């Protein structure tokens, strides 16, 4: 069984900075780590492979710093890692990201399952997994909190939908988006960490992925554009009014209504 896990490198929370002009995250120079939700997806994939036989490979789209996320995945136990990296891919929104990943998977040959984390800690859309599945034409299940059986052609999973469990059977290949609390991710071993440090990571750009249309990648392939990112101006001024002072509200309300 061949399982792929999509992982993303996200900034450590204390090193997040935005480019005020483009509205994009400044990824270069920031400290990158693997997206926390993707760690859970990795753990789920590894447990599946251990229980039912198979291998786990990690895929990431991002700048060079995304290598750190892939090395973490290797240290946890992934056998191979793939990095899709090019200026053409940068600034991608959900559709453009999913398109680039789908082109990789179409070129990769066979796979049985693709696991994704619930959402990323920086973009936080939680949509790439589902979009990717649609582009690949494979069934997908979100909010997976249990995988109870993996056979030759199907997987049985439970989805946590509004606090109810929905038992689902999906034919393979399929894509599963993993709930955050499904597992605590394993801490890498020393041996695996050192192996991961030395291991080659396969890198791909727009020219090395067959049948990739660059115009559907990155900024040019994005249906949405971030206009502005800003910290909202929190107004801390205020007045405390007693019950006998309510008439002071009237002029404020009149101005609000007029506005």
């Amino acid at each position, binding site marked *: 069984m061949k399982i792929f896990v999509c992982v993303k490198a996200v900034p450590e929370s204390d090193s997040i900075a935005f480019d005020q002009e483009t509205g994009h995250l400044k990824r270069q120079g920031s400290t990158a*780590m*693997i997206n926390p939700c993707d760690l859970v997806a990795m753990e789920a994939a590894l447990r599946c492979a251990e229980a039912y036989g198979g291998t786990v490979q990690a895929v990431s789209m991002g700048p060079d710093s995304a290598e750190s996320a892939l090395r973490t995945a290797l*240290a946890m136990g992934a056998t191979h890692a793939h990095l899709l990296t090019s200026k053409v891919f940068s600034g991608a929104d959900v559709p453009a990201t999913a398109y680039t990943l789908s082109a990789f998977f179409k070129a990769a040959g066979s796979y049985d399952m693709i696991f994704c984390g619930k959402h990323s800690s920086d973009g936080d859309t939680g949509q790439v997994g589902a979009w990717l599945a649609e582009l690949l034409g494979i069934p997908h299940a979100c909010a997976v909190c249990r995988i109870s059986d993996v056979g030759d052609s199907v997987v049985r999973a439970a989805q946590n939908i509004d606090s109810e469990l929905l038992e689902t059977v999906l034919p393979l290949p399929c894509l599963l988006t993993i709930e955050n609390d499904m597992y*605590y991710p394993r*801490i890498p*071993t*020393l*041996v695996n960490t050192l192996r991961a440090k030395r291991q080659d990571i396969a890198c791909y750009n727009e020219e090395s992925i067959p049948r990739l249309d660059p115009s559907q990648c990155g900024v040019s392939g994005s249906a949405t554009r971030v206009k502005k990112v800003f910290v909202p101006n929190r107004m801390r001024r205020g007045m405390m009014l007693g019950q006998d002072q309510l008439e002071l509200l009237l002029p404020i309300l009149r101005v609000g209504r007029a506005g």
Partner: protein
Amino acid sequence: MQDAIFSTPLPEENLRDESGMTGYGDAIVFPRDTAQLQAVIKQVCTDRRILTVQGARTGICGGAVPLGGSVVNLSAMTDIEGFFFDAQTNRAHVSLQAGVTLEHLNQRLLSKKLDTCCFDRKSLACWEAYRQSEVTLRFAPNPTETSATVGGMAAANAIGSHIYAGVDMRTQVLAVEVVMPNGTVVCASRLEGESPPLPMDYFGNTVDLSVHPQCGNCAGYNTEGDLIDFICGSEGTSGVISRLTLALAPVPPSTCGLLAFFDTPAQMILFLADMEQKAEQVADGRIVGADFFEASCFRFIRRMRSSVSALCALPDFSTGVSVSLWLEIAAQNEDVIFALLEDSLECLKNVGAPADLALVATDSREFSRLQGLRHGITEAANLFSYEKKVFAMDINVPKYEYSALIARLSVEMRQHPFECVLMGRAGTGHLSFRLMPETGAQQVLAEQVHRRWMRQFTDLRCECACEYGVGRLKRELFETLCPSRAAATKRIRSALDPAGLFSPGVLCDS
């Protein structure tokens, strides 16, 4: 300045700390500054009332539990008042009131966001320089409980795993302001151009300090150093710390944690010695923390995991190991970290340890998870203490006895029916353990074991460690293992507080 808060009767939470003891008292005051604190202490002296000092009440030895009288709680004294930073040398220090918690201080330093309303112009300029700099500062002592106040940490000479690198409160407190039991305010400073008086010079003929063995990390007053060394570790009995100036250190650019497992304590000691040699050979890399955990800790984690949230995030540990060692490695860059990790693999194989089991945390999340091992075990053990009597001991063992003693205790603990955990600060000779009986019969047995071990430790010339303080619960241990220091402590205490008003029963009888 806002008025002090006064409350009578005591709120229930202020009758307890983390030791499980519950006390009693009449009133509690939360002063907001030194003047208010001084007024409280003067009033106490005038009225001849017992006074117990509290910070965040995170102590596990009952030092903050009132046994009558009034309580003065410093948790409202939370101003950060001054800051110094030299961008050329990265030297830095911060001045603050005693009620600031370690967690709060380090969060402000990490985020570089701070309420600077108390800062003068020089502090503001230094803070701005820090904000613009690339470096991140922290207060280096890392006791298990980060919600402790800095005043409480100083009073107990709190240590953490960084004691391995020689970091404790005594070495990191640069200045201190103390309200003495007689109501006078004393300031002692090691800042540039100043030197604090020696205890002998300060107290003069009023206190006999002449016979007091070398202290080190042992419990009791430190009379070998300066006045700051004396006040740190005096557990509030030499006065109430109101303000401190603390040395800050840059956070190392790269850090990782290694949790290695061993079949015997001797393997662990050999491994640590080998790793220390390797670290010395590598420029820009060093071991800054080393804690060990005996197999009893992992048995205890397995039992308590479902009821203590702090344990849930820990991995499942192998059942076959004897001891494990948590190493914190700091370096200038990742290449040095990985060079030391390669060395660690080689060292593990050389001592015959199961190298495949060793875990590594190279990012902050994994690091926090594994570093939380000690905190999780302590928190789980605290749950026991709320309902049952727990026998807690912290001792310093002569280095030549360390490995053999761990091995003997390890074998014996497996035979006892009650829960127990054994861990320690490796490299410093420190052992910390708790016996946690659950039934009446187990309690009788635990008491016998406790007494037998105390005799053994006395024969081995172990000393009572200052980790967690002596408080009330470890007085017997202190008096048994260090009789001459305990006697000297009592004499000094009687001279400082002749009426026995301040935290009676803490550290020694008044």
